[in-house]
């Protein structure tokens, strides 16, 4: 199953290496990692998307992350109300005459064209990974030259409805 895990970490050199090294050593399958600064100086936020076999593995994963000296807080937000965003840049082969067509096609995705050349253009899109997948599918018919995706970054929503506590582990 796919889990979205967020971690608040000390922004020290080697922290990313330590965390990804641990994930590799313990054979966790990482789909994506994003890292960036947080609202506090010296503190970074990481978002992992990880494919795990079962809940025991998720528990192991969060505990192993928590065990790292530089990791301050770990949350598995998959089952909680959360917002998720990813950014993708898609370079599409397109001659001039297709530009307008593409322009209208991407409009419902709230994507924008950010670069145009003689035979290609670059579409920027932000959203949930599924939305980005859908747009990529749509653009495939024009021929995709290149894609780069950031991987997701995520957050808990401010409002949390009462949900079952199945993922909280009391120790």
């Amino acid at each position, binding site marked *: 199953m796919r889990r979205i895990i967020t971690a608040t*970490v*000390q922004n020290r*050199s*080697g922290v990313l*290496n*330590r965390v990804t*090294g*641990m994930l590799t*050593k313990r054979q966790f399958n990482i789909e994506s990692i994003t890292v960036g600064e947080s609202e506090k100086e010296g503190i970074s936020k990481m978002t992992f998307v990880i494919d795990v076999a079962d809940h*025991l593995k998720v*528990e*192991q994963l969060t*505990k*192993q992350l*928590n*065990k*790292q*000296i*530089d*990791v*301050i807080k770990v949350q598995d937000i998959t089952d909680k109300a959360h917002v998720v965003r990813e950014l993708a840049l898609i370079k599409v082969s397109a001659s001039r005459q297709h530009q307008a067509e593409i322009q209208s096609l991407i409009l419902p995705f709230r994507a924008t064209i950010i670069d145009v050349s003689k035979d290609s253009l670059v579409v920027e899109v932000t959203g949930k990974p599924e939305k980005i997948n859908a747009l990529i599918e749509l653009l495939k018919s024009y021929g995709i030259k290149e894609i780069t995706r950031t991987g997701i970054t995520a957050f808990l929503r401010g409002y949390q409805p009462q949900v079952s506590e199945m993922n909280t582990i*009391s*120790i």
Partner: protein
Amino acid sequence: MSLKVVKKQKEQVQQVTGSDILIDALTEQNVEFVFGYPGGAVLPIYDALYRKKASFQHILTRHEQGAIHAAESYARITGKPGVVLATSGPGATNLVTGIADAMIDSLPLVILTGQVAKGVIGTDAFQEADVIGITTPITKYNYQVNKIEDLPKIIKEAFYIATTGRPGPVVIDIPKNISQELSEPIKVEKNVKVHLQGYQPTIFPNPLQVVKLLESLKHAKKPVVLAGAGVLFAEASCELKQFAEKYQLPVTNTLLGLGSFPGDHPLFLGMAGMHGTYAANMALTECDLLINIGARFDDRLTGNVEHFAPNAKVAHIDIDPAEISKNVDTEIPLVGDAKEVLKLLLKHETETPDHSEWNYHLNQYKKEKPLWYEKPKEHLSPQWLVQQIFEITKGDAIVTTDVGQHQMWAAQYYQFKKPNRWVTSGGLGTMGFGLPAAIGAQLAAPNDTVVSLLGDGGFQMTLQELAVIRERNLPVKVIILNNQALGMVRQWQETFYEKRISESVFSYNPDFIKLAESYGIPGVLIEDERSARNKLEQVFHTDGPIVVDCHIAQSECVNPMVAPGKGLHEMIGVEKE
């Protein structure tokens, strides 16, 4: 005018090097010994050692691996961090085995490695290795010092991290420009506690879980305690004994937990696991409540987890939350320091069922299926030898071992009565550990008898450390169980690979007696049983170091055994065929 003022100020404060600051910081931590080996990138540190007459002793080993194993052993016996110092590149990479060993066996170490100067890091400079990259997966934490001002703080943090929570090794990589840079003396405030936001080990358990365990104890008819090295780190042997006696709980040990419970106690079942006793392994299989105190359910202990404690409710006391349910599903997790958890458990009174029938049942196992061996006709029996050593030393010696058959025989036949007398490489299974470990042990406990029980294979991996034993006149009794083979490898080839004995027998071994003599250490050869006891007694009456070469039967196997992939109840070699 202004220039003069600056000059005057400079004269007032005497400049020191980063190395001076380092040595002061180590002194502040009450370091007794630094086990090390010099080299280019640590020349400034060794120069400061020479100039400063540090408060601690530097132990010059003959290989960095020797230094780190000695430090591990010192840490195992004293509970204090072992300190290691090595140069950059090959000096640091020679430590890697020891760092991994300390990590998996949770030994507190502070390892100082030299590094090339900051300006050339990343240019593949002479003796440069990416020590941070290499040691990240095998350290609890590591640092590279970037600014001289950070040095005292890093040292203080490193000692704190290494020794608190679940202990482990911490590496501090010190570039040469830092160790030789001049600065005003810097110290950290003595009374300021280290605070790390992301690192706050849990000491006291959740009281609800304590109640849950006591509640389970109320209903358990067949409880058993599995005590691991966590009991030793927490210095909780007394509490463990009280707890076991209060509720009449049978106790078994992991390999590394030996000594945490008296080996001659009526409630003691012996060691559990791959080469454990039948009674211990059957107790784990048949129990309905398993209380694990400070053990990590290693695969050599559990055997096939599918068959491990199939009917038991599992309670697990561990200071590392990540160990809970890692290998064995746990119903009652008690995260905390073993001593504190046991103290809390002892505070409460709980009515428990009578366990005498269960204990009687296990005692029958002990009586009917004890550890056994047959003395080979023409050769010395290694098990018998270990028993003689046990008798002569009255079970009071510190025993260090390598890894393999002799290690298992020591674990089986040397009954440890007291904590911190047993120094062995458990998790990593490092050959060559035993001899340098004896150095650390003897320095940690100068008045105790230290026996270094080795195989001829492991001895030849680190025998150069005999020089240190001689140099320091450490009265270590080095006893080699010499079967001219890598006994455990040979045993597995015989048992599981249809006797295809592949590269596990030495067709040539040096004369260990002459070898010892070349190091200025007397040697004794023991070849037959008749003279063995006498010679061994003389060995233990000798002052100073001695090497004993015991020619034992090559064909001997460690019994009983849980074959790989099998459950604990499927032991082989339980009885004579």
